[in-house]
């Protein structure tokens, strides 16, 4: 047993270790073709992702569409089966959990989905939607569950009387509040927010973001916040992880990453955030072309085909995450 492993065990015993550990997470989707529908290729949606989330922290996971952010979120929760890798919640393996252990684990890890319209069952009342988690985990008596639902509705800014209504009677922002109340019902330790505001009007986005941070304070929550909008992630995150084509390319404290990004992809993302001052002139890094196909990613560094500073070395040698400052890592030979 190495020194590192010993240190990990001590940390966990003291309850000071990371709440969630993601180790070498890989998720490849088969591309089926031919008469027998055999896998003819693999979409490397997530290709070796490693990160930790500390208790009470918010880790922002950013990247453009198709970078694998949502797949990371769903694989962590075992909503889709992983290809390989490991996820530990308070040191307990999520992927190796038996069905009954998994059911217990689900109480501790909940998810808020992007689409507030599709993610609520149209045939169930709001009370049933929020209370179902309590019901299947056998929490409380029917009357206690009802009281919990009322309290949750008020916590997210709705009213207890809304319990009997159906999802279609609410606006997008209200529906997302219902989704949040539902996620909180089982008092989870970590909430994975998968693009929780992308489907909402900009005016509603900030309300929901404020609600999420209030709830974090009141319920001592830990968030994995997945989004493609750098401005939103910067506002809510303590640390930021940047993903590109199934891999994490940079991780660091939110402020540092936003002020001084090290990886060329992170630089491009941050330079794309609009600034509310017409006189500010700054260097814009505009990326050429689209994200390459995850079926056949470029050799070496995945980003090299669109990178402004790529060299021959990048085509041959894959850059690994290495320290680039205090608490910061980046996967670039030239960072």
């Amino acid at each position: 047993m190495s020194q590192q492993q010993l240190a990990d065990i001590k940390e966990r015993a003291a309850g000071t270790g990371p709440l969630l550990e993601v180790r070498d997470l890989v998720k490849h989707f088969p591309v089926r073709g031919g008469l027998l529908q055999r896998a003819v290729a693999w979409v490397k949606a997530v290709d070796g992702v490693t990160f930790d989330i500390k208790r009470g922290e918010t880790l922002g996971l950013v990247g453009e569409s198709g970078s694998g952010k949502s797949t990371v979120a769903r694989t962590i929760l075992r909503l889709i089966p992983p290809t390989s890798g490991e996820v530990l919640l308070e040191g307990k393996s999520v992927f190796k959990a038996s069905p009954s252990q998994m059911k217990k684990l689900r109480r501790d890890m909940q998810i808020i989905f992007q689409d507030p319209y599709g993610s609520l069952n149209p045939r169930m009342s709001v009370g049933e939607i929020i209370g179902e988690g309590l019901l299947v985990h056998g929490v409380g008596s029917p009357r206690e569950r009802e009281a919990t639902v009322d309290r949750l509705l008020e916590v997210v800014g709705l009213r207890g009387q809304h319990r009997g209504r159906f999802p279609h009677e609410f606006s997008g922002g209200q529906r997302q509040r219902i989704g949040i109340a539902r996620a909180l019902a089982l008092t989870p330790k970590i909430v994975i927010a998968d693009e929780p505001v992308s489907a909402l009007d900009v005016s509603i986005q900030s309300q929901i973001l404020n609600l999420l941070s209030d709830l974090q304070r009141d319920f001592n929550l830990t968030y994995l916040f997945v989004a493609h909008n750098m401005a939103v992630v910067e506002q809510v995150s303590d640390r930021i992880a940047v993903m590109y084509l199934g891999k994490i390319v940079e991780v660091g404290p939110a402020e540092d990453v936003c002020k001084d990004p090290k990886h060329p992809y992170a630089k491009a993302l941050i330079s794309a955030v609009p600034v509310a001052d017409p006189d500010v002139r700054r260097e814009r890094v505009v990326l050429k072309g689209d994200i390459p196909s995850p079926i056949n990613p470029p050799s070496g560094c995945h980003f090299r085909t669109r990178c402004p500073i790529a060299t021959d070395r990048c085509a041959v040698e894959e850059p690994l995450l290495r320290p680039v400052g205090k608490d910061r890592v980046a996967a670039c030979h030239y960072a």
Partner: protein
Amino acid sequence: MTGFLVRRLGQSVIVVVGVTIITFLLTRLLPGGVARAILGSRASPVEIAQFNHDNGLDLAIWQQYLVYINQLVHGNLGFSYRLNESVAGLLSDHLPKTIILLGISTLVALAIAVPLGVMQAVRRNKIEDYSLTTLTFVLYSMPPFWIALILIKWFAINLNMLPPQGPQGPISTYLDPVEASALVLPVMALALVTIALFSRYMRSSMLDNLVQDYVRTARAKGVSTAGVLYKHVLRNALIPIVTLLGLSLPGIFGGALITEAVFNYPGMGLLFWDSAQTRDYPVLLGVTIVVALATVVGNLLADFFYAVVDPRVRITE
């Protein structure tokens, strides 16, 4: 809701009146008159003229129609020339038998097709799904009379297990084992076709709902696989089946007509069949009106239950 019902009832009345006009015209446009059919091919022109006069068949078509409608609104469905019996009496004798046949076969079809469709959707693109798809397509593409004949050949003639014709006695005897066993083949013949139809719809409806986001939400809550399937997927997947039931009523009745004829089952279908052969217009009209009414009511009920099962559909005034 009341406004909606009143409006739909009004529409239904128009539809039924339209059906009586069209059917009335069609029956009168057929070559060869009732008189020929009743009096035989050797009847003299004088006899035929006398018969037509006695029965009001020498009046203009619109006058005949008005006479008929006048009777109809007074609850008189007419009189069968051939059977010498009132149409209302004939219907009250034959209609319940058809309702029993249709009711049992539809229930059997639903009881088999719904689990079948669910199973196919859950095991989609696997061997079970492909085999059942093939089987249901074979059944669906077979004409109902063909299925009926095959069933008679196998179960009545080769295996000698079941009677080759439907129960002949009154409904009160249907609980008798012999009569009940006679009902098995007609029910099977009708149900097999409907199973094929319903299970296809059920499969695609389940597939639509299995990929919905709220199914993922339910799994994230920790709901068991069976719970997700039943509470979240099946309950939503059944909604379109309600409409399908209402819409397929005329089709099922059409199937019953053939099936009753093949099994010599004395229901409304057989009555219609025999009356069509002998140009017994009052009976044809009476049966058609009953079927039109059943179709209209079926669709009305489907709309009503649609609003009951789907909270998103709230009929506004």
